[in-house]
């Protein structure tokens, strides 16, 4: 400290300056108070996102297992029915043959048969006799039941079977019938529904699909300088993207597909004026003792950037059959993006450590370093529903992560982007 008291002019100036104490705007304290409130933990978003995916996965897996087990029971019951012989006997009824089902199996088998019968015995109708009547088509057979209703005999048609040799496929119990196509259960177990549809659609060699989709995404970015430990955050930005993917399903690998795609989106990202940054600086106490302080405090920078982005990506997916015409798809991939900046505004300064590196405003960063290529890692989980031979809809959750260098002059400035959002689209098989 200098001996300024000896200088009357300085002394007078200091006294006058110290006497100047204007009352600050009331908004200042409100802003300070707001900044001091505990920050919302952003990791919470990811926690809930991944929790949601996890819970959805468990529920989905549970339903899948349940349905597949149900399929096992049907198959088991159908196999049991092969153990029955059908004997034809002539009855008093002249209009048709009266058929009587006679179990010729062991006691253990007959217990299982009793279990099947119990379902019909519980009905309000009392079964007296059972008849099998061929329909006009040779491959179809109806079972005619004669029942007692209101003390009168009445005949009703019950089960329909597709073929005498395939009595084990009983239509009302078959959960795998779809679009008029009777798929064998084994197919559903081993192939994605798209392939099965393709197999039955007359284009047996086709494995290609086009997937047009749109996503509603959120992006959060952090800028970080190599020279300092200071970070500079940008606000979340929301955007829609559109993309077109070509999907190839491997015929032999069954549960594997590749995808290649092109897409586009516009991004209008605001810079935050209230993000916490960390700074380490050399300071001294009022008594002149030096110390190094490392603290978090709020940055006041504001501004925005508008850019247009095109991307190309490729990846692989695993379609897992759930039931009927639904499959669960998990895919990962790499995306190359080209970002071009169109405009930017800068309302205030950037943190001083960036300024020391010859970057004096957000606009400097924006105008100098916007146009660039960078890579993104992709992760997608979605559900695909096939509603016809050629069309399916797919919807799911997209997420991606990117690290990119934005500035290479006196220092390197990294930008890290985390994107997450919902995706939905239409698939056309050709």
């Amino acid at each position: 400290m200098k001996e300024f008291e000896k200088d009357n002019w300085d002394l007078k100036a200091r006294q006058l300056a110290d006497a100047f104490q204007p009352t600050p705007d009331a908004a200042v304290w409100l802003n300070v108070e707001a900044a001091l409130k505990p920050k919302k933990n952003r990791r919470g978003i990811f926690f809930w996102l991944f929790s949601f995916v996890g819970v959805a996965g468990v529920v989905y897996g549970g339903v899948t297992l349940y349905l597949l087990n149900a399929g096992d029971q049907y198959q088991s019951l159908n196999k049991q029915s092969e153990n029955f012989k059908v004997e034809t006997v002539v009855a008093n009824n002249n209009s048709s043959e009266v058929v009587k089902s006679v179990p010729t199996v062991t006691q253990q088998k007959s217990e299982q048969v009793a279990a099947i019968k119990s379902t019909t015995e519980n009905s309000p109708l009392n079964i007296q006799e059972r008849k099998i009547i061929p329909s006009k088509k040779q491959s179809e057979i109806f079972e005619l039941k004669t029942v007692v209703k209101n003390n009168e005999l009445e005949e009703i048609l019950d089960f329909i079977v597709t073929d005498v040799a395939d009595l084990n496929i009983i239509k009302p119990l078959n959960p795998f019938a779809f679009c008029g196509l009777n798929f064998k259960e084994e197919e559903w177990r081993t192939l994605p529904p798209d392939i099965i549809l393709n197999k039955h659609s007359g284009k047996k060699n086709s494995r290609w699909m086009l997937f047009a989709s749109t996503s509603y995404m959120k992006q959060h970015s952090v800028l970080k300088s190599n020279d300092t430990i200071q970070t500079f955050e940008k606000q979340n930005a929301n955007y829609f993207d559109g993309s077109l993917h070509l999907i190839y399903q491997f015929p032999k690998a069954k549960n594997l597909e590749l995808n290649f795609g092109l897409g586009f989106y516009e991004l209008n990202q605001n810079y935050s004026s209230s993000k916490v940054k960390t700074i380490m600086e050399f300071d001294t106490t009022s008594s002149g003792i030096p110390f190094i302080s490392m603290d978090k405090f709020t940055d006041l920078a504001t501004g925005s950037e508008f850019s247009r982005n095109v991307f190309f990506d490729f990846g692989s997916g695993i379609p897992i059959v759930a039931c009927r015409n639904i499959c669960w798809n998990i895919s990962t991939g790499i995306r190359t993006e080209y970002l071009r900046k169109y405009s930017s505004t800068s309302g205030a300064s950037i943190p001083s450590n960036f300024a020391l590196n010859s970057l004096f405003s957000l606009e400097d960063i924006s105008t100098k370093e916007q146009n660039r290529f960078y890579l993104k890692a992709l992760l997608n989980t979605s559900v695909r529903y096939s509603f016809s031979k050629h069309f399916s809809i797919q919807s799911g959750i997209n997420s991606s992560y990117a690290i990119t260098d934005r500035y290479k002059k006196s220092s390197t400035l990294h930008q890290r982007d985390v994107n997450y959002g919902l995706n939905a689209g239409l698939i056309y098989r050709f």
Partner: protein
Amino acid sequence: MTESDGELVQFSLKGNAQAQKRLYELFASKMNGVCYRYAGNGEDARDILQEGFIKVFTRLKSFKGDGPLEAWIRRIMVNTALDFIKARSKNLFEDEEKIDVKNHATNPEVMNKLQSEDLVNCISKLPEGFKAVFNLYAIEGFSHKEVGTMLGITESTSRSQYTRARTKLEQIIQLRFKVKEYERV
């Protein structure tokens, strides 16, 4: 540090909102004056004050209590203000005008009649670099060596800049005084 300051700090560190507000109210006006001298306008002064107080509360744990709380807060405000004007002006000493440092002398009566608002307004008329050096050396009481370290200039540059700043300030004060006298007549 007085006992009440110590209590305010302790309660503020525990997150007591009332203590934080009391601490703010205790120093807000004084620090607003400091910020205004560096910023040169009320709007920027408000931004600096806001950022400065956020720093104060987030760094309060590093206040050891071995000096007055006011001096510690003032130092944070000054550092914040310097960061602000450095970011605002790419080169603090780039466009300083040529000033004849030999011919300056403020009439002592002028200084005696000068009000605090007048002085601060005159300081705000100074170029950015002059303003920083004058505030740091004449008002805050730092040595030229300390001023040089804080502004990234040499000690001799700080000395010469201060001389020019003071000359320029006295010219502004004289001019303002004359205008006031004229208005009075």
